[in-house]
């Protein structure tokens, strides 16, 4: 229960960050990816801000033996560069450029009641489900 409330707070704060940063405006996202046209570098600063904070907080937090509300750390430890990692990232990048939405901003944008974010979000969930079906058959991730 405490973990769920914590997750709600994180989601809430994350969304505020997205709104302030400009990530909820697909035209800005496409402008950032339009490197060979009228490039809008502003969203590069979102990553700089986020990594600039978390690079340090990560180190400090991981000095603890355990998180505050859980018994163990659940941070990914995989190191292998797999075809799924690359191919999946390529597909994601194409979709990101096509709609200007990645998962976080798409979910937060549902609050705008616009038909496009909702349509995108439903399609994204279907895409996730399709991967599950495909992975079951082809075992991409083994």
């Amino acid at each position, binding site marked *: 229960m405490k973990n769920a409330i*914590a997750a709600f707070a994180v*989601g809430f704060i994350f969304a505020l*960050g997205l709104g302030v940063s400009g990530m909820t405006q697909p035209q800005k996202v496409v402008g950032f990816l339009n490197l060979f046209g009228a490039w809008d570098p502003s969203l590069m600063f979102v990553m700089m*801000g986020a990594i600039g904070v978390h690079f340090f907080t990560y180190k400090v937090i991981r000095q603890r033996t355990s998180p505050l509300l859980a018994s163990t750390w659940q941070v990914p430890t995989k190191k292998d560069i797999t075809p799924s990692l690359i191919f999946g990232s390529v597909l994601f990048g194409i979709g990101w450029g096509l709609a200007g939405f990645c998962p976080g901003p798409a979910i937060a944008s549902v609050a*705008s009641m616009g038909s496009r974010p909702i349509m995108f979000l439903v399609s994204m969930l279907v*895409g996730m489900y399709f991967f599950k079906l495909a992975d079951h058959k082809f075992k991409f991730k083994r």
Partner: protein
Amino acid sequence: MNPDWINALMGGAVIGLSVSLMLLLNGRVTGISGIINGILTPAKGDTAWRVLFALGLIVGGFVINYVKPDSFMGQLATSDFTVVAAGLLVGFGTIMGSGCTSGHGVCGISRLSPRSIIATVTFIAAGVIAVYTFRLMGVLS
């Protein structure tokens, strides 16, 4: 400095703080695609926090919409077909690639994970090539 850049930097810092909070409290990375995907494959005792996280994002979205409604301006004028195709690609691709902008781009790079660095470079490069190609094709303006 361009005000858009300052907003981006500040918003980014807030995102950095929120993912730090997730790590400190729940010991997890804030990988949004992974958190949402977990709802589609419900495991006992592992679903409520995921749903509440998504709810937090949406409630946060309502607050932004109230305080600064222009945060949701700048929608593209592409066809519905394009939106659906993009959503399918993002859903399929983020799960296949084990992460998106938050999990790989923010959390993974912050801990210098080689997988996340390679994934992030890959999806940004793919996005740049996609935008270039779709503009040539006239899909994007």
